[in-house]
């Protein structure tokens, strides 16, 4: 996967002048078009289920893509990323229930809380490598999950945040209206993806790739590896938290399951499905997983078997995520064409 990106970098480097401007704004343009398409969807279809589907894709998509910043770009396989998803949902829900502040303030406050918590947890975790990193993040996740369960007077314990999350109107946006919630989720998804894309394509993003490929060399080049890892850990947590907030708005509550390890597991699974070497891989994985989940559970309660077979197919058959596979296939084709 590194070769693939290196090749892409090569094609970008010589392009100067007018093409750089185009390259810089290309992502923004794509994002704008994507948002326009998604936002106009309710004009063409009255299907609430489709809108629900996209809202859930936004929540999981933000979460999975942020996890890919760690897994794919930095080589930090976090097994506890779900804690920030849960933290986002709970912080947002609790702030709205207890303080009744306008939604944007709760949104920013939640990001601030997540940022602080992620900085503390990250400071401890990113010193570790590989399996140790994975397990310590998992331990922190279980710590947060247990805290939610035991602190029942504040969090509602295993029953979750009850009574619904109030959604007062702000700036003409009424999130208790299904279409408004849908458009807001799409906006958050697109903004989040765009921001993460900028991070991934920035010099900082390439620093992360270098750390992933050879942390020792990065260190010799004068990069503070610990700081870079901590920064991306906190950034990824913020986007996961955004995903959690979208989910909290969708179900109008927050439940301990949001902070359980299974959510992190789903994130990893999504990344495996979609692929980690392309930016949109996790997004493709999200759509695939949710489609699979929604269609398979309609027909059988033995969905575990079906999903397991799909995982096996991807892990043993394709040996990579779907988008990785497609990207390589195209690269292969191009090579074959050029070879002629």
């Amino acid at each position: 996967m590194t070769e693939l990106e290196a090749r892409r970098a090569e094609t970008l480097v010589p392009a100067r002048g007018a093409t750089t401007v185009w390259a810089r704004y290309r992502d923004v343009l794509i994002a704008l078009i994507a948002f326009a398409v998604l936002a106009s969807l309710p004009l063409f279809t009255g299907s609430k289920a489709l809108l629900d589907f996209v809202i859930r894709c936004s929540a999981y998509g933000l979460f999975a893509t942020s996890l890919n910043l760690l897994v794919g770009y930095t080589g930090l396989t976090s097994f506890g990323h779900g804690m920030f998803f849960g933290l986002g949902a709970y912080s947002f829900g609790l702030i709205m229930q207890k303080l009744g502040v306008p939604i944007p303030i709760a949104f920013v406050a939640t990001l601030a809380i997540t940022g602080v918590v992620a900085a503390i947890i990250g400071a401890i975790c990113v010193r570790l490598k590989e399996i140790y990193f994975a397990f310590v993040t998992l331990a922190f996740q279980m710590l947060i999950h247990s805290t939610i369960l035991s602190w029942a007077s504040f969090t509602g314990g295993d029953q979750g945040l009850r009574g619904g999350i109030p959604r007062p109107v702000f700036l003409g946006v009424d999130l208790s209206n299904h279409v408004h919630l849908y458009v807001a989720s799409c906006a958050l998804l697109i903004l989040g993806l765009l921001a993460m894309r900028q991070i991934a394509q920035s010099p900082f993003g390439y620093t992360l790739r270098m750390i992933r490929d050879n942390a020792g060399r990065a260190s010799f080049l004068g990069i503070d590896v610990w700081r870079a890892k901590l920064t991306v850990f906190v950034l990824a947590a913020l986007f996961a938290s955004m995903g959690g907030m979208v989910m909290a708005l969708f179900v109008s509550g927050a439940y301990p399951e949001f902070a359980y390890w299974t959510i992190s597991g789903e994130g990893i699974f999504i990344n495996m499905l979609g692929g980690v070497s392309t930016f949109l891989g996790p997004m493709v994985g999200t759509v695939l997983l949710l489609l699979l989940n929604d269609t398979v559970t309609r027909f059988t309660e033995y969905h575990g078997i079906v999903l397991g077979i799909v995982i096996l197919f991807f892990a043993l058959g394709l040996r990579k995520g779907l988008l990785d596979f497609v990207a390589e296939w195209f690269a292969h084709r191009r090579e074959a064409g050029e070879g002629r």
Partner: protein
Amino acid sequence: MTRTRRPGISRRSTLALMGAGAMTVAAPWVARAQAKTIKIGMPTILSGRVAQLGTSSRNAVMLEVEKVNAAGGLAGRQIEMVIRDSKGQPQEAARVARELVNTDGCELLIDAEASSGAFAVHEVARDLGVFCIHTNSETSALTADPKQHIPNAFRTARQGVHDSIVGGSYAAAIAKAKGLKKWATCSPDYAYGRDTTAEFTLYLKRFAPDVEIISESWPKLFQPDYTEVVTKILQAKPQALYSCLWGGDLTSYIDQANIYAMFGQMEVFAVNMADYTALTVVKNLPKGIHSGNRYIKTFPATPENAAWGDAYKAKYNEYPTNWSWENATAVMLMAEAAKKANAADGKKLAEALAGLTIKCPFGADGTVTMRAEDHTLVGYAIGWGTTIPQEPYVPEVKAGDWKTIFELEAEWKKSKGYT
């Protein structure tokens, strides 16, 4: 120029594939049958650790729906059940519930979810305004808390607070008669375990003021090994033990405590013992464990109840569970409400259902009532008895007194700030 045709997938077949894919994806969203049948959606737990209970809910509902359909359906409309697995995850329960209403065209919901899932579905019912009966959540706050109250949602499950009042008064009577003053508790460490134990001891002390709790154990939910808990209790030497462990946890606890001959050394009150899922699984069921009734075909000791339990067993080759009667009651109430309203429309059904009393095999006096003020089931059979190792397992059940339950429940609601 030579590149007109490459091996691999052609553009045409790609388009065809995409088209087929789009059709598959869109088909469920397009389908919206609005025939004469009425669809009732039911999210429940059909996979994972409590799948057995979810399956028993589905069985009971299907048993009753067949009867209703044979008798002409809900106000003349045949019922079609759409039952989906939520995996016990609240976000899935919410999604499935929304999908059932928005996509599958279900006009009514039977929410057979436990704990947090029920609250998630409750929010969906609030959001969509769809008629909904919660059948499995025993958390009292679901209906007692006025913040939760919505006109279109009901509950046909037993309740934590009812169980505690009856259990507390039953245990207190025995404590006084046998002079049991030193008590220990052992319950799972999560909200249900903590709340139920606190409420039980509250009422136990109220009826028997000289009782004291000398030891508390809080094993984790789904804990495999109870040795430390058992030895801790044995060392404390209590005269009686209360536990609200349930299902597999309770059966492994009993099997392990049997090794230490614990049940000969103290009186044991295990509220969730008298359920066939526990009674039939324990290897050596000790004689004389006190338990609340969950579902048992001998209580209430009426031919109707016995017939219902036998019919269920004949059809599914196993006995019903606590969740079975709760779900069956939901269908019975819906059928009666539809008769009364002469409509199957959710709004009219809700109006007819509030305050409705029906004949029911699970009623303490042969009837159950959907209380109008808080939309929850009252008058169901509730009592305590002691176990024997073979059928009928709990030969005699002492019925709880609903008058006392109502009085103390009102007091409890006031203390919680609900009224």
